[in-house]
């Protein structure tokens, strides 16, 4: 029971981090039509910049300033590069972000080196949010913070780190803020309209280039915020972008392009899908065995039958994405197909 609970929590929290990342991506993707391959790179830059700022200003200002700085970098990139290729269509837009991801990676390594940097959470976020104590025969109970060692002597204690709790909190706040922004302001409409008819939107009196720049910048800032939190929770290293690089596209597609709610649901689904199967040792072979068949290495297809669910866990998100695209191209909560 406590294991299931811990696993669920882990799945949810990693899903929420994905949400922080993919919300920016879906914003850019659905409103500007740009598949931003450099999105994860901005995530990484966010972590690194925050790491540097922490040294100067402390954690909380860095948490605020790093996203702003990255947002400005993103806006600058939009202004100087992306805007130029907008008229050539989506493939060049995509490729230019592709090129950017290389450049960012190299620059990060030039500035901060090629190994991990010691980016640690501030004092208040170190330690445990709560402890799950499961005493054999008595079920499960909670203790805030770290449980006393005496308690844990007889029982099995699992602590849930504060950083992860903080991550979940920030993600939820972000969801709320974005939802307010998109539903309570006209900016969202302007952007969607500008996607297909930029000239007309301008003729109606909206400064489209500026809006697009803002959108791109905000998307990057969101990625950077995720980066700061991802950076303290996991490690801050040059590899951190590549690891999340393609999974966030899966999230956006599964949830449904252009839908914030979709990105949220998609993130949680993918987060759980990446986590829960890891704990399952069962395979087709064991399933067949339990159904009374005998499976030996000579059984045809044994190499496939042998694969345990935990071994294939990493491909499940992609499998889900392909199936979704084939059977429900709009995604779980999406409204459009293109």
């Amino acid at each position, binding site marked *: 029971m406590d294991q299931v609970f811990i696993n669920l929590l882990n799945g949810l929290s990693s899903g929420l981090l994905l949400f922080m990342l993919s919300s920016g991506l879906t914003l850019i993707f659905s409103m500007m039509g740009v*598949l931003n391959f450099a999105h994860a790179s901005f995530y990484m830059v966010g972590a690194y910049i925050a790491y540097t700022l922490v040294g100067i200003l402390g954690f909380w200002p860095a948490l605020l300033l790093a996203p702003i700085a990255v947002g400005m970098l993103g806006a600058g990139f939009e202004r100087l*590069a992306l805007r*130029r*290729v907008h008229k*050539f269509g*989506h*493939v*060049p837009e*995509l*490729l*230019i972000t*592709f*090129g*950017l*991801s*290389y*450049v960012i*990676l*190299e*620059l990060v390594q*030039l500035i901060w*080196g090629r190994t991990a940097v010691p980016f640690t959470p501030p004092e208040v976020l170190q330690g445990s949010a709560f402890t799950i104590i499961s005493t054999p025969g008595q079920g499960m109970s909670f203790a805030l913070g770290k449980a006393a060692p005496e308690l844990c002597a007889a029982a099995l204690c699992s602590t849930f780190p504060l950083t992860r709790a903080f991550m979940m909190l920030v993600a939820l706040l972000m969801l709320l803020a974005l939802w307010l922004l998109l539903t309570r302001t006209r900016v969202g409409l302007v952007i969607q309209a500008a996607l297909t008819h930029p000239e007309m939107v301008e003729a109606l009196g909206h400064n489209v280039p500026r809006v697009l720049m803002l959108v791109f910048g905000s998307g990057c800032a969101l990625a950077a915020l995720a980066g700061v939190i991802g950076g303290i929770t996991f490690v801050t290293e040059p590899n951190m972008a590549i690891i999340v690089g*393609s999974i966030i*596209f*899966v999230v956006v*597609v599964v949830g449904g*392009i252009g839908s914030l709610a979709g990105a949220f649901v998609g993130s949680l689904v993918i987060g759980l899908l990446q986590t829960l199967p890891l704990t399952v040792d069962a395979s087709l072979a064991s399933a067949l065995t339990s159904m009374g068949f005998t499976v030996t290495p000579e059984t045809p297809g044994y*190499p*496939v039958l042998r*694969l345990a669910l935990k*071994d*294939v866990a*990493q*491909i499940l998100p*992609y*499998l889900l*994405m*392909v199936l979704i*695209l*084939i059977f429900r*191209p709009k995604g779980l909560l999406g409204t459009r*197909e*293109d």
Partner: protein
Amino acid sequence: MSQAKEFHFKPHNVGRWIVWGLFALILFVAPRIWTSGLAQTMLTQMGIGVIACLAYNILLGQGGMLSFGHAVYSGMGAFLAIHALNMAGAGTLGVPVSLIPLVGGLAGLVFAAILGYVSTKKAGTPFAMITLGIGELVFALALMLPEFSGGEGGVSSNRVIGKPLMGISFGPQIQVYYLVAIYCFICTAAMFALTRTPLGRMLNAVRDNPERVEFVGYNTHWVRFMAFTISGFFAGIAGGLGAINTEIVNGEVLHASRSGAYLLFTFLGGATFFFGPIIGAVLMVFCGVLLSELTKAWLLYLGLIFLFMVMYAPGGFASLILMNLRVAAFGKFKKLWTSYLALAGTALAALIGAATMIEMVYHRQLNEALGPELRFMGATLNSAGLDAWFGAGFLIVIGVALFELVRRQYVHEWGEIQEDIEKEIKRREAL
């Protein structure tokens, strides 16, 4: 109409014969000009790359299908080819080495037919995402089945099987090169021919306006599917040749970065022109092998090259070449060429300055054991002293400033020339 018909004859397209002849000639003499082992390996890879990029461009350029997973088909071709090669070596499969690439081709075809059937149901972004997903799936699955893929280590083989036939054992690199060259020529010709067939033309139509295609009797899914399958076939051949060349195939042939490279370099070469991907493939091998040899900062350079190319020449190198050929065809190239010299000169100055700085930074970070000095373009620089930095900075500033001046002049001239050409075309039309 009938009168027009009498004068209607099909001229032998001399130009086309010359172009193909030249292509064959280049394929033939290249390894005699560049004879080192590395050069021959690279030429072999270029030949393979040409097939792969052209195959990819059937999707991207001709069919408007943005695929993020084409390495699946070249990779599956490579895997089945290497298994076939091993079986041939063990005597359980009676296929000569020269036909092993066709095994790869068939594998590519079969996989493209199976996986392509679902991917080509959609176009646009959904298509792109399905290919991305399938690419990741196949890659990860292959690694999970070490019986098939040899795990991270891959499957290795020996291409020298049995006794040499007429002195050909495929042991020496040069023999492999010529095998690749022959395949390359035939495949290029075949893919070019495809663009001249009904299917090839309808593929263009599907790219431009899939909706309308349905109303002139064609099933867009089927058109895309057939093109995808054909593309898979050629990609598989490239994979098979790659397997013979390296004698080892591992998961990386299926990896997304390989698919990404096809996309990037096809685009850089010029997806809108048939021959663009050929340039792209040559660049791909250059960047992948040579650039990383020349400089530690190659990823940075590569990224920057992409950024600038996409921004300033979205049609790829092919479009740059064609635009200048057009200028030349109207006899206006003379006017430009001083500008080109000036542009190249100033750009070079700026680039050398920038590259010097980048190299010095990398040197400081990575190679300090050798002391602060580094050799760059024949000169010895002291990355610890201010001189080199100032010198480089100076070079950049001056280079960029002059470049900007020349560029303005050039843009002006270019504009005028284009205007003249437009006028000239109008005039000719009016005749």
